[in-house]
């Protein structure tokens, strides 16, 4: 090695990946476990963590046993499904954000950018306006989220190709249009009838989670996450400049839409059961990237663990801080927006400094 290379060696110190990454994963898993147990434990009726493990153990052994005690019913019927759905949603939203940021080569995009959330919100508002609840509501929300994405795809596709900037701007257009339609639905809604329901649902909350809702949302969230995880190496390639990605055998303009569709699956499933919960897909991948780097093979699992732990922690705060539960979406936005502002400034400061 020449002198200049040795000089470089001191600049670019080897990045010891495995032990550090393992330590981070172990730490994140421990934190997630603690947050999950705390989430089930605390509340107006506190349940001892040891008792929780006992109750869950018994129910695992005999899922259809009679839940005689009050604490058994609180843990098994109220808190456990809620905490599990929150954890799954947090993990899936964070993974969606990480994947989108890779594909867009921009750390500032999130699932909202594609207009999926706004489309899903419109579907939900219309369903509530017409008094549709339950599974049909979920189906409408899910389908309207997907159709927003399809609309973005249609607008952005010019001469058979869609550029990244066009996709982002199309997402803004579609999002703005659906937001206006949501406002229209609210304007038309009876203030003594569906209006409060629409407003509360749009704020985002897991308060009415049941096992049934968990099982409705889980397939979309889990399948979306698993397929994004399967794409982890391809996401590395797609995060390169388009010409480079093409030269490596990828077809960015097609494969990008596969990622978008998986994100729509995840966001649609989540919005359907718990309304708009924003900012997770923006804040969490950034934190994960600081810890494990940009490689999606390590970034996705780290985002998953952090997203789950973060959203369960925020949800636990939302239902314990005050007597009346604060909608979760408000808290995630209150935390997310300032973090976004800092990210934005840092991102462009780095860029203009070069």
């Amino acid at each position, binding site marked *: 090695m020449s002198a200049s290379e040795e000089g470089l060696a001191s600049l670019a*110190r080897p990045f010891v*990946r495995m032990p550090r990454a393992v330590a981070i994963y172990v730490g994140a898993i421990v934190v997630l476990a603690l947050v999950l147990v705390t989430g089930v434990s605390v509340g107006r009726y506190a349940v001892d963590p040891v008792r929780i493990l006992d109750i869950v153990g018994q129910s695992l052994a005999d899922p259809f046993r009679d839940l005689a005690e009050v604490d058994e019913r609180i843990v098994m019927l109220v808190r456990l499904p809620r905490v599990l759905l929150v954890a799954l949603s947090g993990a899936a939203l964070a993974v969606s954000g990480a994947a989108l940021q890779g594909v867009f*080569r921009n750390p500032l995009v999130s699932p909202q950018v594609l207009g999926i959330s706004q489309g899903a919100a419109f579907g939900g508002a219309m369903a509530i306006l017409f008094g549709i609840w339950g599974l049909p509501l979920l189906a409408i929300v899910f389908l309207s989220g997907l159709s927003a994405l399809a609309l973005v795809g249609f607008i952005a596709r010019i001469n058979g190709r869609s550029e990244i900037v066009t996709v982002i701007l199309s997402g803004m257009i579609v999002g703005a249009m659906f937001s206006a339609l949501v406002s229209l639905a609210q304007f038309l809604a009876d203030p003594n009838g569906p209006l409060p329901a629409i407003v509360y649902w749009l704020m985002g909350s897991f308060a009415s989670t049941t096992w049934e809702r968990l099982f409705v949302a889980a397939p979309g969230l889990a399948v979306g996450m698993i397929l994004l995880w399967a794409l982890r*190496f391809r996401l590395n390639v797609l995060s*390169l400049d388009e010409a*480079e990605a093409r*030269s490596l*055998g990828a077809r960015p303009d097609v494969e990008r839409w596969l990622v978008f569709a998986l994100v729509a699956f995840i966001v649609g499933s989540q919005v359907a059961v718990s309304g708009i919960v924003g900012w997770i897909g923006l804040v969490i991948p950034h934190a994960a990237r600081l810890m494990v780097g940009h490689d999606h093979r390590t970034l996705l699992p780290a985002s998953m663990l952090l997203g789950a732990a973060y959203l369960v922690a925020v949800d636990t705060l939302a239902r314990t801080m005050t007597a009346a539960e604060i909608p979760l979406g408000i808290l995630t936005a209150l935390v997310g927006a300032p973090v976004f502002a800092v990210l934005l400034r840092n991102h462009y400061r780095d860029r203009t400094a070069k």
Partner: protein
Amino acid sequence: MIALENATVRFGSRAVLESLSVAVPIGRSLAILGPNGRGKTTALKAMLGFQPLDTGSRVAPKIVGYVPQSASLNQRYSVRDVVVMGRAAHLGLFGQPGPEDFDAASRALEHVGIAAFADWMFDRLSGGERQLVLLARALATGSEVIVLDEPAAALDLRNQERLLRLLTALRDERNRAIAFTTHDPNHAFAADDALLMMPGAETLCGPVDAVLTSDNLERLYGVEMRHTTITGPDGRTRNAILPAFAGKEAA
């Protein structure tokens, strides 16, 4: 082999490539020269398949190793992880790189002489080292064709020497087709053939010794050129071509 046959590309009414035919068979290398805006990059993109042709056809393997002028990658990947992305075409949509892919990446890094950098973060490397990593990535694709976009344009003299030696060594292996664009006629001597994209629509193509004459280069750039001989680092005499404006007036 990589080739264009009667390739025409028009931007509006302006024909950037006019019935361009050029072929680089396995075992040969080609340098593409031309003034700014004449269409070097368009020719390169056409060869890579990134630029749709208005007429004509392109012959190329499915995967062409491509070394961009500068790395778009500003993210934190290790050098090894950047190079292993060269294996993506062999892995498909859901594939993950296995031990044989990392072996291929290591061999590619050794090939360009930067195996010692494997565990370093790509974004911490200098421009010259990044260029070598991207070349290693192109080699890791296993493609028989490597295309480089102005590989030496942003490099200092030390790194230019390094890159040219590497290009010469790759040429001398005689098992690949190599094409690169350059602004420096002396860099083109690292190739077998040269394609000169003359002003207007004319192109000249042939062995470097025949094509890279001061007359042709004067017409190419509209600048007076001078032949000179210098003694190379190995003590042997080398032919060089310099623009007449080079140097400083002697007292």
